[in-house]
């Protein structure tokens, strides 16, 4: 059964130096607050896994938490590049970053295999591309019935997967709706899992299109309102498109990034609630005002 913990306690208990960590959420419900808590707790040597490493991983990579990234699309969606990611790949700053690169179909199937307790998945993928030349986790497999050649990719089984959801009940059952991405598979593939939620409620009212993760399939739940900001939580808040623009200006330079780290992440440490009662709301998790955006330009 899932334990209800504060975000700080959950990250402290579940995420260790050297772990393979997946934060999932496909545009929707990206667990940004959890990512920043990992930075705040100064985790190191993580292998980060994510289909779409966007701002959340730019922050973790820039803060030096990662030694490796397993991914299929790394960018600031609708804006451009991830400057911290590029700086790490091109200049090994602040630490070298090894990459293992797949396609979305490959990554999704790697999670499916992980969730299914299988060592690998089969797909029609990568054909004719240069990816298999550089990614050793893409192999060929022969159909034992037709002789056809297909691609095989190994299961992903993170030490810990972290997702954000709309709600949980007090027993730790999790409810998600809207775009659900690969979150169920990421949680089921992992050895441990943390779900941050907008709110913990007495009863989960059914919502059309909902996905339920039973409490016994989750390790910990933490209540973190606005925990997906600047991404969105359907039914709670919209995507803060301005933040994605703003991030471009922050991430572009090492100085502005380090200032951001110091102001918006590390300085929040003292405000973390100890008892898990009053949820932490970081100063960074406030909609970027037009003024801030302008200033950033």
């Amino acid at each position, binding site marked *: 059964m899932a334990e209800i913990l504060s975000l700080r306690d959950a990250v402290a208990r579940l995420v260790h130096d050297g772990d393979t960590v997946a934060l999932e959420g*496909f545009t929707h419900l990206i667990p940004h607050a959890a990512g920043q808590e990992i930075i705040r707790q100064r985790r190191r040597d993580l292998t980060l896994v994510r289909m779409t490493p966007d701002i959340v991983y730019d922050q973790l990579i820039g803060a030096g938490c990662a030694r490796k990234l397993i991914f299929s699309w790394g960018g600031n969606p609708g804006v451009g590049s991830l400057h911290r990611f590029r700086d790490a790949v091109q200049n090994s700053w602040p630490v070298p970053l090894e990459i293992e690169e797949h*396609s979305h179909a490959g990554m999704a199937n790697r999670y499916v295999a992980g969730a299914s307790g299988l060592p690998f998945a089969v797909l029609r993928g990568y054909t004719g*591309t240069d990816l298999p030349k550089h990614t050793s986790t893409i192999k060929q497999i022969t159909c034992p019935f037709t002789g056809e050649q297909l691609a095989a990719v190994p299961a992903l089984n993170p030490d810990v997967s972290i997702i954000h959801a709309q709600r949980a009940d007090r027993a730790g059952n999790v409810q998600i709706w809207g775009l659900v991405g690969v979150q169920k598979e990421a949680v089921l593939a992992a050895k441990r899992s943390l779900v941050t939620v907008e709110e913990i409620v007495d009863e989960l009212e059914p919502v059309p299109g909902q996905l339920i993760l039973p409490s016994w399939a989750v390790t910990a739940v933490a209540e973190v309102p606005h925990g997906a900001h600047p991404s969105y939580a*359907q039914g709670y808040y919209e995507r803060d498109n301005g933040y994605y623009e703003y991030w471009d200006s922050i991430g572009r330079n090492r100085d502005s990034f380090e200032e951001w780290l110091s102001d918006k992440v590390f300085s929040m440490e003292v405000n973390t609630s100890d008892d898990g009662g009053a949820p932490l709301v970081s100063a960074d998790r406030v909609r970027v005002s037009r003024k801030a955006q302008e200033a950033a330009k």
Partner: protein
Amino acid sequence: MSVTEERTYTSDEMMSIAAARSLRNGQRCFVGIGLPSTAANLARRTHAPDLVLVYESGTLGSKPDRLPASIGDGILAETADAVISVPEVFNYWLQPGRIDVGFLGAAQLDKFGNINTTVIGADYEHPKVRLPGAGGAPEIAASCHEVYVVVRQSKRSFVEQVDFITSFGHGRGKGEREKLGLHGAGPTLVITDLGVFRPDPETAELVLTEVHDGVTVEQVREATGWDLKVSPELSTTEPPSEAELKTLRELKAA
């Protein structure tokens, strides 16, 4: 034609409108991020109201009333016929060949329609520029019946041979897709801000088949990184109609 001496539209608008026109009503279209999404949504609001939009974020039949800000904009889920998981969209819907058109963008495109969105520079380990990577594109390019590419054209983006094949087009020529066992026809249409290109039926090399109104073949050549062949039946793109421009601008403003 109602074009005055001063053009009332941008080349990007012409590109989006030409791209939108290429989609036929009722087709199932797997929509990539950025330019393709603009074009597909424009098509749905003009001549192709029953175009079925499929997004890799897991939406089938989205009918957004504004331009989605990202591939996973909430409006796509809220207006979809069905919302499904990301593994399902790739495994049950894309992979078996249920989608007519894969609509992709590109950072780099070569004369055989191969697409690069991974690295600029020959050394993958030490790239000149690290690009976002593959996303859904390799399998979209493999599995859709046809692939349309929409891209802003320059010598840097339109190259003899891509530095990295992220999504396989026609390889180094006709017949390579079949040899690799790929089911879809690959890139059959490329739309840029200057014109329209189609693979030569004999060689699969991209050939200029349309120039946009007001663009010269010489301008296109100058923005092409290989010795461009021009179709003997070269035509000129019909300029945007007022209705197309109005709809596009409303879409982008919303």
